[in-house]
C-alpha cells in the first residue's frame, strides 16, 4: 500500500464513521479492504419478549399503525450496516447509488395504512432519518429510516412483499 492509498483509506474511514456505517467491504485488483465498526448492533434483538408475546395475544391480524414499537433510531444504522457486496449488483445501472436495506426480516409496506400515501416515491428528495417504509415483523410495525440524504431512484420491492434481513429496499442517489 502506497502513501496515496493510505491517505485515501484514512479519508474513507473518517467518512464511514461520520455516516455511522457499521461495516464496509471493498475489493479491487490487488487490494481488499474490510472495515467494521463497533457498536452498530442490531436492534431487532432488543425487542422485549414479554411485550411481544402480550402484543401477539392482543393483536389479531395486522392493526397497521405505524411506529408501534422498536426504536427506529437504531434501525437506520442497522440498515446501513447490513451491506453485503453481491446485492449491490441488483441496482443494475448507476454506480455510487446508496442502497437502503431491510434491517429485519418481515413484510414490506410502502405506506402507514392501506390506501394511504406512500412514505416516499421515486424522485422524492429524502433526508437522513426520514421514515421511508414499514417492515412488519411479528405484527409489529417497524418504521425504517433513511440513512442518507438524497434522491430516491428506485424502489426494489413491492408493498406487501416479504423481505429478508439485508434485502435491498430503495436506491438513493446521495446529495
Amino acid at each position, binding site marked *: 500500500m502506497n502513501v496515496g492509498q493510505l491517505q485515501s483509506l484514512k479519508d474513507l474511514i473518517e467518512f464511514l464513521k461520520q455516516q455511522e456505517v457499521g461495516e464496509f467491504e471493498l475489493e479491487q485488483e490487488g487490494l481488499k479492504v474490510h472495515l467494521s465498526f463497533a457498536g452498530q448492533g442490531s436492534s431487532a434483538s432488543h*425487542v422485549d419478549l414479554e411485550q*411481544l*408475546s402480550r402484543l401477539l395475544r392482543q393483536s389479531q391480524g395486522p392493526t397497521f399503525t405505524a411506529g408501534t414499537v422498536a426504536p427506529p433510531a437504531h434501525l437506520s444504522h442497522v440498515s446501513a450496516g447490513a451491506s*453485503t457486496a453481491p446485492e449491490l449488483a441488483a441496482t443494475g445501472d448507476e454506480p455510487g447509488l446508496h442502497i437502503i436495506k431491510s434491517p*429485519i426480516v*418481515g413484510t414490506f409496506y410502502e405506506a402507514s395504512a392501506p390506501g394511504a400515501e406512500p412514505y416516499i416515491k421515486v424522485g422524492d428528495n429524502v433526508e437522513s432519518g426520514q421514515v421511508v417504509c414499514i417492515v412488519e415483523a411479528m405484527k409489529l410495525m417497524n418504521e425504517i429510516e433513511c440513512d442518507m440524504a438524497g434522491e430516491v431512484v428506485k424502489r426494489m420491492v413491492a408493498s406487501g412483499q416479504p423481505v429478508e*434481513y439485508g434485502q435491498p429496499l430503495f436506491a438513493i442517489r446521495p446529495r
Partner: protein
Amino acid sequence: MFRKVLIANRGEIALRIISACKEMGIRTVAIYSEADRNSLHVRFADEAICIGPPRSADSYLNVPAVISAAEIADVDAIHPGYGLLSENANFAEVCRASNIKFIGPPPEVTRLMGEKEKARMSMKKAKVPILPGSEGVIQSEDEALDWARQIGYPVILKASAGGGGRGMRVVRNADELPNFFRAARTEAQNAFGNGDLYMEKFIERPRHIEFQILADEYGNVMSLGERECSIQRRHQKLIEEAPSLQVTPRMREEIGGTLKKCLETIGYVNAGTVEFLMDEDGKLYFIEMNTRIQVEHPVTEMVTGVDLVKAQFRIAAGEKLSEIITKPVEIRGHAIECRINAEHPEKFTPSAGKITAYNLPGGNGVRVDTAQYAEGVVPPYYDSLIAKLIVHGEDRTEAIARMERALSMFVVEGIHTTIQLHQRIFADEDFRVGAFDTKFMERFFEREKLRREVVQ
C-alpha cells in the same frame, strides 16, 4: 401432518431435520445468518430466509426475527433442533401465541425442567432415584454430621450460591467434617457473600448414562433405552454409545417403567432425555432432563430402528405413540458415535476456516451426519461440531473395529479436527474394554503425557 416447517437451527442438525421432512413430504424453510449463506441447510431446504448478521444473538437466537420469518414463509410448525432456542420456554410460548406448532414439549414443562431443584423434587416425588442430599440449607456442624450419616460417606458440601468449585469440599469421614464445614462456609461467604451450604452424596467415578424417551399428547410415554456418554472433556461429550455395558435388561426395564410413570404425571410431551449419574455399584441417580432432541440421538436410532426426528413430527401432529411405534422396541447390536469437532486435537482451541479436502467414510454400518463439504467454510461464530460419525455393529467389538476403520477413512484438510484424538481413544485399552467413567479423559491425557516423557 404438517404442510410446511421452519427449521430454527443450522449445521448438521438442521440438515438432519430437513432430511426427515423430505422423506415425509413436508416442505422446509431454512433460516440463516449472513455467515451461513453458503451452508447446506440453506441449499437443501425448499426455501431459505436470511434473518440477521453472523452473531447468534442477532440471528438464530433472535426470537422476533425467527417468528417473523415463520410468518412470512407461512409455516405451520417450527423445529428448534438442539441448543439455540430449543429449551427456551419463552420462544415456545411465542410460537403458541403465533399459532405455530413448536416441535417439543409445552413451555410449562420446559420451564419446570429448567429449574433444577424443582425438577429434582418432581422426580423424587415420582420415585425416580435422585442423588441423596440434604433438604435445604444446613445450619450447623451437628446438622451436617446428621445428614452425612444419613447419606453415607463420601459426601460433598456445596455452596448454595456457588459454582466453579469454590465453597466445595469432599468429606470422606466424620472426623474431617467439622473443619471442612467451617472452611467451606467461610469460602462461600467470601466468594458469594452467602455462606449457605448443602450436602450431596459424592460419587468418585460416576458414569454418565441417559435414557431416551418419547411421549405423545395423550399421556403415553415410552423409553427407548439408554446411552452411555461418559467419555467427556470438561462436560463436553466426545463419544456416546448404546447400549451401555453397565445397564442390564432388567435395569433398563425398571428405569424405563419408573420414567414412564414419572413423565406421565408431569405431562411430558415429545422427545426428551433423562440424564443420570451411575455410581461405582451401578446405582443410577437422576441429575437433569433435557427437553429436546440430543446431539447423540443417532446411536439410539441405530440400535432401535426408530427415527426419532420423524417421531417428533408425528407426535407434534397429534399421532399416538402406538401408531408411530407399532412393534415392541428391541435393542439390536451396538452403536457408537464420535463427535468430530473443528478443534485443535491437543489444545482444543476452535479451528475455523476453509475446508480444502473432505472425504467421508461410508460402507456397511457407517452413518455420517454433517453439513460440511469440501471448499466449505467453518465460520468462527458457532459451535465447533462439524460432523457426527456413527457406526453400528452386531456387538461392541465389531462397532469398535468399524469405527477405527471409518476414522481412518475420514479425511479433513484445511482445518484441525478431533479425528486423531478419537483414533487415540479407540486405541486405549481401558476404553476398549469399557472400563471408564466421566474422569476417563483426565486420566487419558495424564497417561499420554507420561508416555511422551518416557519416550523423551
